[in-house]
């Protein structure tokens, strides 16, 4: 049964400055989406080759059309610091290969503290 865990002070979680906690043997990080200011709780291990995922970045997904057309879409991804693989911030799925999925967790803020359900 997963429980809510007090991870960090909300003020301490900023874009590029995640909070990391170890919960029951798993390293879980809380990252700040610089676009929406939302918090993302995600396992700190890339399912591809094991990088510490929370050392990567939180970015707005780019889509495009052939012919050199690029546009930003309303979708946030966590980008691995090693090989640049992207993982959907809501589902944890790698859009390019759904066989690769990282665990993401519910997160909420109470009284200035960040809680993660894991």
């Amino acid at each position, binding site marked *: 049964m997963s429980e809510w865990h007090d991870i960090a002070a909300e003020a301490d979680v900023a874009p590029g400055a995640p909070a990391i906690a170890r919960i029951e043997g798993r390293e879980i990080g809380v990252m700040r989406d610089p676009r929406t200011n939302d918090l993302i709780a995600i396992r700190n291990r890339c399912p591809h080759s094991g990088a510490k995922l929370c050392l990567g970045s939180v970015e707005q997904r*780019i889509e495009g*059309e052939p012919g050199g057309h690029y546009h930003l879409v309303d979708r946030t991804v966590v980008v691995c610091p090693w090989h640049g693989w992207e993982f959907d911030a809501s589902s944890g799925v790698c859009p390019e290969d759904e066989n690769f999925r990282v665990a993401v967790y519910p997160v909420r803020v109470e009284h200035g503290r960040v809680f993660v359900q894991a």
Partner: protein
Amino acid sequence: MIDCDVHVQITHPEEILKFIDAPEREWYRNQAYLLGLPGYPWSNPSTWFRGDLAVDETGMPGGNPATVAKEVLDNQGADIGILTADDALSVGLMQNTYRAAALARAHNDWFREDWFPVDDRFRGSIVVPSQDPVAAVAEIERCASDRRFVQVLLAGGSERPYGDPKYLPILEAAAANGLAVAIHSGMEGMGLAHQPTGAGAPTFYIEWHTTGSACSIMGHLFSLLTHGTFRRIPDLKVLLIEGGVAWLPGMLWRNDTNWRGLRDDTPWLDEPPSETMKRHIRFATQPLEHTDGNDELLWQMLAAVGAPDILCYSSDYPHWDGDEPKWLANRLPEAWRQGVMHDNAVNFYGSRLDLPVAR
């Protein structure tokens, strides 16, 4: 059996020059190399040709339609022989764009007037002045109504890989007219083309034959995939000829791996590029690499990227490194033979292979 690569030789240049307007003919006669086409920097140290074929008074095989029909269609048992150019593969690399366009027209007329009527099992490739896409499109549209033409032929050697938008009109015109696009390795480092390898010009023919002809095909394959060409032209079909296939699994895996991490640069790629390849691209089998007793490993590797459906038989007649059909068929897994030797080409080319010919 369908042979997707039968090279026609220009043994008598005047046969082609008769299709060029009189004021221009002398220019072609006066060129240092054949009809002004770029010459090969790397020449086979012995001969370009098999030694058991009939030759005419020029000492070359492959230049007489009746002889080619006998040797390829009758003796080798091809139901259809798709004629590709030989030296004229490099017409799109001539420095003189206008002469290239006129020579391409003449070569296509030569096929239509002197080759197709000899045997209704012949099909042909349209050569185009790819250095001038506007002229190339005009030539495709001029020829396309003759349904004995089944594809537009481009050379492995090129100014840029064919996914570049410069070439898009050529690919669009081919698809719009129900023609495939065949890219045949060769002509790297000739005329307008870049050197065969990223390491620079090779020294020996064997280097060119090993790396040059494979690298250009790799370059075009991944250029077409990366530009999203098949999203822009959903009906486009591409046959890659004589670049080898043993490297294919490794390069596709390498590219799919890169795509996962580098997608921001090409976000229009909405599936692994190897999956797009399976739907749109076919590979002519010759020269199927020798494996030193590891054929089973080769089949297993190729099956992982879509074989046997992605393979179409080619002989490369009349060249020295051709793959004889019985030898190739016997080497293939039994379950692959019908597809590779016949059915895959039928599915790829569609109704233009039908007999009798609808002109």
